[in-house]
């Protein structure tokens, strides 16, 4: 009888031990699950951040692409003008030199013809002179002031007094403003 009771106690102890082991396992599993959730949350956070980064990058690249296409079209349209501007800018000093030579006295007929030829070429290319007449108002959109000349006339104040170097434009775009001197009333 006693032995039987002892056996019972052993069985109860075993059951308690099993129950305790079960609780420990459960706690461990819960802790493990919690860790897993934390890790998964962290991973989700990282993934969300990465997703946002990739989305931003993709949107940026898409916008860049759309803008680039638009700009390429514009540049294609403007390429002819840009090339023309560069070519004309290269030739302007030649024309300026001929102009200066002409101002020193009459040029030999050959030089006159070359000047005329350049001017005709400019006309063909839609390159025209910026209008800058003495006595007309100075306008910084078309003219660049290089000095002032005193005048007693109030009406003359702010008018062009001298044209130093001719200005040129293509269509409405000023390639080089006319270099002028301007009347100044004191």
């Amino acid at each position, binding site marked *: 009888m006693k032995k039987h009771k002892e056996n019972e106690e052993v069985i109860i102890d075993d059951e308690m031990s099993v129950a305790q082991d079960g609780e420990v396992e459960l706690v461990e599993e819960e802790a493990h699950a919690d860790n897993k959730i934390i890790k998964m949350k962290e991973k989700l956070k990282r993934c969300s951040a990465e997703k946002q980064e990739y989305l*931003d990058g993709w*949107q*940026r*690249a898409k*916008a*860049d692409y759309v*803008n*680039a296409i*638009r700009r390429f079209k514009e540049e294609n349209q403007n390429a002819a003008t840009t090339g023309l501007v560069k070519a004309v800018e290269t030739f302007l000093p030649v024309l300026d030199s001929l102009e200066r030579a002409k101002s020193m006295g009459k040029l030999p007929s050959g030089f006159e013809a070359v000047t005329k030829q350049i001017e005709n070429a400019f006309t063909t290319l839609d390159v025209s002179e910026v209008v800058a007449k003495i006595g007309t108002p*100075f306008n*910084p*959109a078309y*003219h*660049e*002031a*290089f*000095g*002032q000349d005193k005048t007693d006339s109030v009406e003359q104040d*702010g008018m062009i007094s001298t044209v130093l170097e001719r200005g040129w434009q293509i269509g409405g*775009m*000023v390639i080089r*403003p006319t270099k002028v001197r*301007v009347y*100044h009333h004191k």
Partner: protein
Amino acid sequence: MAKILGIDLGTTNSAMAIMEGGEPQILENAEGARTTPSVVAIAKNGERLVGALAKRQAVTNPKNTIYGIKRFMGHRATDSAVEHDKEVVPYEIRADNDGGVLVHLGEKNYRPEEVSAMILGKLKEDAQTKLGETITEAIITVPAYFDDAQRSATKAAGKIAGLDVKRIINEPTAAALAYGFNKKKDEKLVVYDFGGGTFDV
């Protein structure tokens, strides 16, 4: 996503750029130039001119044409550099009640930040026209030797121009970034800045 405008607010000329495909791209201004003179003027007819147009009429209107305003950014009117420049520039420089610098333009006095803001405003408008989108954010470069007051003044100028200045960065740093020093192997770079107003290495 709106572009952030990179601005080199120079003493003599200013320039602007955007990042496209990871590379900096200089934007041309309304006149088709890659640089804009850092000049502001009030013409005789009261019109405000900024950039090339202001520069072209400077000879005829020296008292109302402000150039080199960067030299006065974040300075006190009593600073020796300001005292010196006051004797050299054709426009009028005064001191405000707090001892700050004021420049006389048209009928009003302006702080250097306000004049710089006019330059930044033109760059902003030209960039918006060029890109076809609204620009609200910018990064502005300043010389590496600029102190806190000068940097704050530059930031304030951006704010006045309606720009949220995300960062103020040093000019040589910007040059090195444009070169792509952070993408290449370990190397030492010397950056030369051949500016119109200053020359730094």
